[in-house]
């Protein structure tokens, strides 16, 4: 057992995989500096910098995967997928179907997401529910270093396109790069358990599509991913004092959803609170309610999500992102 930071864990798992599998290459903007440790170990053929041409290099990653490589394509932020969605929507996600199941594109798209550090509405989106809408894409959102590394390993072994979302608030590296710039004068509300944690000496894949119950609870089930999991855990702990037993289910994979785990947990508590940093409408929170209704489970339901474009001002941002107060209030309301 070792203790690693979140991004360190991902890079470490990636390095282990790269040492084992020579087909893995990594590229994206500024990758030579951002992944300098991989560059110094695996050399410039496998670790490459790109122009600011997301459509070209993401599309190239899809095709390179089809041709036998295992590319990890890094995009600076999930928000920027807007300029290159075609590669995911119409190519990566559809090769397998179009080819009659004969060909796949095992590309891993590694991309930071999420807010909480004051970068504004074009740089702090989550969009995992948006990506999950597209059949054929696997969408991963780890919440701890151990899951992050293990899911990266699983992604690299998966025979299809995987979007690997790296929450910036959990990442010491991104927070320093995009947030503090090494200042001591700013602080962020970083969930400690997510930012740093114990990991195996040698990475093992964490199975794709398996949720994990972070905390058992009898009264209400809070389902979340990423930073939301930690916010929910904190609230659950506080609620314990009040005699409310809240369980927290960490989906880890947004698509494919672990429907069984969701159904089991909610069937027991009969109360579901979805905490989702992605936009509220037409996304994860809705899909979870459909899963419940389809199963014929009756439950009380609420959701704490991001409802609008994320404001720049820190205090407004804190109000709009799923925060402890909103989660707390929602649970209390579900308990009435």
């Amino acid at each position, binding site marked *: 057992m070792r203790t690693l930071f979140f991004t360190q864990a991902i890079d470490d798992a990636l390095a282990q995989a790269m040492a084992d599998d020579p087909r893995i290459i990594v590229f994206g903007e500024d990758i030579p500096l951002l992944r300098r440790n991989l560059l110094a170990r695996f050399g410039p053929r496998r670790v490459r910098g790109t122009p600011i041409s997301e*459509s*070209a290099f993401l599309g190239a990653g*899809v*095709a390179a995967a089809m041709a036998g490589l295992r590319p990890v394509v890094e995009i600076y932020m999930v928000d920027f997928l807007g300029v290159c969605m075609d590669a995911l929507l*119409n190519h990566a996600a559809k090769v397998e179907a179009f080819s*009659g199941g*004969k060909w796949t594109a095992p590309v891993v798209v590694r991309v930071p997401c999420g807010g909480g550090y004051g970068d504004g509405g074009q740089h702090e989106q989550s969009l995992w529910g948006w990506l999950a809408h597209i059949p054929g894409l696997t969408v991963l959102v780890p919440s701890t270093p151990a899951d992050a590394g293990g899911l990266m390993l699983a992604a690299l072994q998966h025979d299809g396109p995987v979007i690997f979302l790296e929450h910036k608030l959990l990442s010491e590296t991104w927070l320093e790069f995009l947030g503090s710039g090494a200042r001591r004068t700013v602080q962020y509300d970083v969930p400690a358990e997510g930012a740093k944690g114990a990991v195996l000496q040698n990475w093992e894949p964490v199975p794709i599509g398996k949720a994990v119950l972070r905390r058992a609870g009898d009264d209400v089930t809070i389902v979340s991913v990423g930073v939301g999991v930690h916010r929910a855990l904190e609230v659950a702990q506080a609620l314990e004092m009040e005699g409310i037993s809240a369980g927290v289910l960490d989906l880890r994979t947004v698509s494919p959803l672990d429907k069984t785990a969701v159904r089991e947990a909610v069937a027991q508590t009969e109360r579901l609170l979805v905490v989702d940093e992605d936009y509220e409408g037409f996304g994860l929170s809705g899909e979870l309610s459909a899963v419940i209704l389809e199963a014929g489970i009756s439950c009380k339901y609420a959701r704490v999500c991001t409802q609008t474009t994320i404001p720049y001002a820190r205090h407004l941002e804190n109000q709009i992102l799923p925060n402890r107060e909103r989660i707390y209030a929602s649970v209390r309301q579900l308990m009435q």
Partner: protein
Amino acid sequence: MPSELWSLYALMLKSRLFEEAIAKLWHDGLISGEMHLGTGEEAIIAGVVSQLRKGDAMALDHRGSAALLMRGADPVLILRELLGYPDGLCGGMGGHMHLFSKEYLAASSGIVGAEGPTATGFALSAQFSHPGAIAVAFFGEGAMNQGMLMESLNLASAWNLPVLFVCKDDGWSITTQSERVTGGDLNERARGLGVPAVEVDGCDVSEVWEASHSAIERARSGQGPTFLHARCMHFEGHFLGFQLLRIVRDPFREMPEIAVPLTHSFLRPGGAALRERVAGLKKVLAAVLSTLRDLRRDSANDPVRRARKTLLSDPVRLQELEDQIEQEISHVLASALAEVPS
């Protein structure tokens, strides 16, 4: 006359007859939606594809059937795919805009410009795992205004990738004359993206072969990408049943449906001043007239006939070859239609 001409002609003729068979299936209603043929661009496809070998890859556009056929894919499987049969090339899941062959490293897309990133990615894999192998992108001149294709030219240049970017310039993007919406010169554009450009007559298969031969050699030997600009003509217009061509071919049937509402709208009160309206009307008519004018059936613009002319010097061999190919294609058609799965 290069020694390759016979085999190039064979490829082109085979492709022509194959696509004419497709047209028939389409007209008979056995194929449902859009159908873009490559008739008219055979010299470009044959000139390039005939030089590909194992490990080389192709990124195809919405006119990919010919390239796949010439590359060696089973024509019966292609046809059965177009017919939507479960034993088609892609199990009936792809159709003519989404023909995929892992065996030949060939991927199609109906998204204009997507051939750029795809070929670049194939070339990256070649550079990495199979030095000496290359990737080809086929696309139209209209696609040259799509950002991702321009980005790909630059990326291929920056990474010195073995790509041949083949621009099949028929002058048209569906009903738009591309030069009216395209600034500058495409060859200069490619050079401004770091890719050397070569201009070639896309109706002359030997010329295409020569030019692409050098470019392919460059790519194979690690000297990076080339942009090949080749003019051609699409005999069927954008796709089968193309409205502008229907008007030209059968004006009495087609014109009223178009002219009546057009005139009506032109005369309707409310709207622009007369001068503006006339300018608008002129634009509509210009599109129709330029279709009339471009004489798609002029044999000088038909790459198959042009190659044939040279080969007429050996009429016996020619006849033999043509008989053989015709027979082959009619067998293909028969097999494709046989045993329709229930």
